[in-house]
């Protein structure tokens, strides 16, 4: 069932951009500086725009007439397929940026590979999103380096963020039978094949930022098959409120 595996993949990638986009948008009006507020809002906007493309295609592949909005607003938590990293609470500005950097580095490599997907619809969305994500990675990496190699306080916070988020990075490179099926058809890269490139980008930035890379230990997982942390429920409560309370509302 290539259709089922494809749909699952599209939900996985689209839910990652949706949930991270929503998380980042929570900063709107609360950032430590106006420029950063604008940058975060712009990043969130790019991610939401990419979500429309991914979930729009997911609805098309599913063939039940569901739109990107239907998929975003009318599914329950267990139907979401995002990795646990993107639903982590924002914490302080440093933690938000560290999460963004760890995600961007992976997202960048994933999209780069997807540009060569045998499914042209996926290749086209990846081509578009890749440019935006390269831009995101330049910024998040720069700030991780600056804050890591900044004051004693900023360094401490960045190291704490890294230590806390590290056990959530392993899920990006895990794969299952659905992935294997799509890899076999040349639609997606093998998740584990992105690890070496990611390690390189991350190690370089951490070294420059005088941050210590945590040891690889237990890695949390579950999001890709719908098993989430309690945090996702709170995100959905806020994000889906309007469509749940006033079904079909438009403006």
């Amino acid at each position, binding site marked *: 069932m290539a259709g089922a595996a494809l749909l699952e993949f599209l939900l996985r990638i689209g839910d990652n951009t949706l949930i991270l986009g929503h998380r980042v948008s929570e900063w709107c009006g609360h950032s430590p500086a106006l420029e950063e507020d*604008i940058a975060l809002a712009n990043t969130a*906007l790019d991610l939401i*725009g990419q979500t429309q493309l991914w979930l729009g295609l997911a609805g098309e592949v599913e063939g039940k007439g569901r739109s990107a909005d239907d998929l975003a607003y009318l599914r329950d938590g267990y139907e979401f397929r995002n990795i646990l990293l993107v639903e982590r609470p924002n914490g302080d500005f440093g933690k938000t940026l560290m999460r963004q950097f760890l995600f961007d580095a992976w997202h960048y490599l994933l999209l780069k590979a997807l540009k060569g997907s045998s499914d042209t619809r996926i290749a*086209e*969305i990846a081509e578009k*999103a890749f440019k935006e994500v390269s*831009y995101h990675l330049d*910024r998040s*990496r720069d700030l991780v380096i600056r804050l890591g190699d900044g004051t004693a306080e900023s360094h401490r916070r960045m190291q704490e963020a890294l230590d806390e988020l590290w056990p959530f990075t392993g899920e990006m490179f895990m794969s299952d039978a659905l992935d294997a099926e799509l890899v076999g058809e040349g639609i997606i890269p093998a998740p584990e094949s992105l690890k070496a490139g990611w390690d390189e980008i991350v190690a370089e930035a951490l070294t420059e930022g005088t941050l210590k890379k945590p040891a690889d230990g237990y890695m949390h997982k579950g999001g890709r098959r719908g098993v989430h942390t309690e945090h996702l429920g709170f995100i959905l409560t806020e994000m889906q409120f309007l469509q749940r309370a006033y079904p079909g509302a438009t403006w």
Partner: protein
Amino acid sequence: MEPALRPSLDEVWHWLAQVPDPEIPVISLTDLGIIRDVEWRDDTLVVTVTPTYSGCPATTIINLDIETALTEKGLDKVRLERRLSPAWTTDWISAEGREKLKAYGTAPPIDGTAADGILMKRIDRLSGRSNLTIACPRCGSVNTEKISQFGSTPCKASYRCTDCLEPFDYFKCI
């Protein structure tokens, strides 16, 4: 519409050249380079549009503006199609559009500097500033610095002139 009564495609392009971008009204949609194709398919005029930045909130307004402009010219069957590939790049902004941007106070994109997915070089990052010479659209000085990679709309970055001290927008190159 009867073939004999149809406006020529040149004429349609001319009309589209008068539709302003909703967020930067000094340039038109054709200056921006987002209209990729215009063609008749039977009795329907099909306009192919490519999005600038995927999350740009102006996208729906742009589509509405195109439809409105063409409907006002008497076309009753207009269809818009989205084309993602090749992805839009700031290199497609017309020469005329660049002049208009400059006059408006936004530094136009520098050709060939669109993000091609190659990460910023370490030396550029460490020096803390761009290796590009971006001239201040107000005083023309090239002593400028980047304040933020992002700006007031999804298509802009924020810069500052260190001579006349004015902050200004630079088109975000993708």
